[in-house]
């Protein structure tokens, strides 16, 4: 051992570098010599297609008998009733777990902030061919006849609400239309406190996909 140390010490810096390079080169040569080619085998390609569905709900054409929600109501007084029909159509390919309604006041007044004496909203559904409209704008009236039946979608409540659960809808099924009637009332007995007021109410229906399942 003393002898090896003495030899390295005698090599000096240049000798040490040469020795190191030589060692690395030897190692690389040995490694190359140890790599072999493998035999492999693969199956015949096979593929399948996976496509997603769509979640889309739309309202009837704005201004048509299938969507009167854009029709203003002015000069209302306690005891007045405002009726507006609207179709909700599931045009997507997926069934829905739910359809909810969110209403907001983009222009606010006591008509929407007074949840007791202010505007109240109720929604009903007419099956089959839906509501029959009569009267002239904006004083529409509706009937659900011809063998069609009504069902309650949203019980009367203050007009502004967030993510309101809607019941008895069939448009949760892809391709189905619900014929809805939004009825807005201003309760009687409110005196003059609500006169001269204006609110602008915005309606947004939101559909949420069905739960995930095996496919």
């Amino acid at each position, binding site marked *: 051992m003393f002898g090896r140390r003495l030899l390295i010490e005698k090599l000096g810096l240049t000798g040490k570098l040469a020795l190191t390079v030589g060692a690395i080169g030897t190692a690389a040569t040995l490694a190359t010599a140890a790599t072999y080619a493998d035999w492999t085998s693969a199956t015949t390609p096979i593929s399948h297609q996976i496509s997603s569905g769509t*979640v*889309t*709900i*739309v*309202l009837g054409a*704005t201004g048509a008998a299938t*969507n009167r*929600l*854009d*029709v*203003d*109501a*002015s*000069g*209302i*007084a*306690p005891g007045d009733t*405002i009726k*507006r029909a609207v179709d*909700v159509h599931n045009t*997507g390919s*997926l069934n829905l777990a739910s359809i909810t309604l969110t209403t907001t006041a*983009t*222009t606010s*007044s006591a*008509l929407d902030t007074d949840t007791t004496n202010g*505007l109240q909203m109720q929604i009903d559904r007419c099956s089959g061919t839906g509501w029959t409209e009569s009267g002239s704008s904006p004083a529409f009236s509706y009937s659900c006849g011809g063998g069609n039946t009504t069902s309650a979608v949203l019980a009367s409540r203050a007009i502004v609400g967030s993510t309101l659960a809607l019941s008895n809808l069939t448009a949760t099924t892809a391709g189905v239309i619900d014929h809805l009637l939004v009825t*807005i009332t*201003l309760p009687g007995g409110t*005196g*003059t*406190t*609500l*006169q*001269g*007021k*204006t*609110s*602008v*109410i*915005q*309606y*947004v*229906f*939101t*559909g*949420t*996909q069905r739960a*995930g399942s095996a496919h």
Partner: protein
Amino acid sequence: MVATFPAAARPGPVTLRGGRGRATALWRGATRRARLLLRASLALLLGWLVSTLNPPTTAASWTNATTTIAPTMSTKKVISQAVDLNFMDWYDASDGSVGSRTVSSTQYAGDGHTAGTNQVLNTSFNASYYEQIDYAGIDLPVNVVTSGVTYNITYASQSAGQTTCFYVESRRTTDNTVWGTHGSSGSPSGCVTGTTLTTFNVALTEITNTDTLKDSFAIRMYVYNSGGGKMTLDGNSVTGNLRYNNGTQTYSTFTELEYQRPFNEPAGGGTASWGLGRYNDGTSASGTVAKAGTAVAHSASFDTNKYLEFDQSPGTNFIPTGATITASTLTISYNESDSTGGSVMCLQLDIYVSGVDSGIGTTTGANCASSTSSNVQAAFNTISIISTATQANNVYVRVAPKSTVSDIAKLYVDYIKLTITYSLN
């Protein structure tokens, strides 16, 4: 197998016997840095294992919302209610010839009718001395937002060389609530030197709703006269706008006129009243009535050439354009001057709408007067002739009496008013 560590890193001689004991010995023997590296590696490995074995199970849920729609919901500007307008001006044609128009001296500015204060004023401001103008607000709808409410006062000193200054408070007289103060003793709202009538307009920004104006509203003027003299009052109205759409838009204007003027001057106080200003505030006995100058000459029938005529104030606009009128009633309160007894006075009212004699009503039975000390009241349904705003704002009434006894009774009218029930979209 025995391993030894250099003295510097050696915690002490350890004998390893393979397996767990060997690992423990390696751990104990590792440097601190090596232990930290090992711990970090184990933590990373553990995290990878957990994430691999337990993939996330909460998937995003697809939703879709409809295009928003925002219809406007607006209530009526005025929800159905009744308002009154009393007829404050009148003519005496009881002798068959029409006399000059009689008006409250301080109702209208610039009409040639003025009134002086009853007594001389103080020579400096004193909170005890004031001239107060009372307004009834009976022609205003309930609970409507107002804007630009202004007190308009036209006055002068009664003598040349004297200066009369004022500042005002808006008040509720029933409990002496002060809504706002405009000017002060140190900084008056206005001053007039000399006898030239001058108008000042004081913005009453504190008045924002008709309810305040209908609740025993008054303007109290604190005044002084540099020479200790009187002031001349010509007109003192309160004007403003009626608003809807959450108070953002004007749909009509209003003008309120005084119906009485309480005062407290250095020499004493009282209330200046206009005979036609207030319902049931007097009879022929107390004098706050419009008095015919001539007794009824005809006892058997009405003579429509001999009458008292009652007019609305010029430019009356108490029913706004477009209003839907559902009820209209004309009411008169009157008595007679016969103090001898025996006379029974009945009336025929000719209701003129826009200058046309449009309807006639007569009083009979209990609605005829037979007393000097108590009024009788009669009401006439006028919806068939007054059913629009234009009609309601353009009415005057001629009242012709007849008496069971000729030439002993004069007609005294305490009050005459038109009540309109309306709403406004």
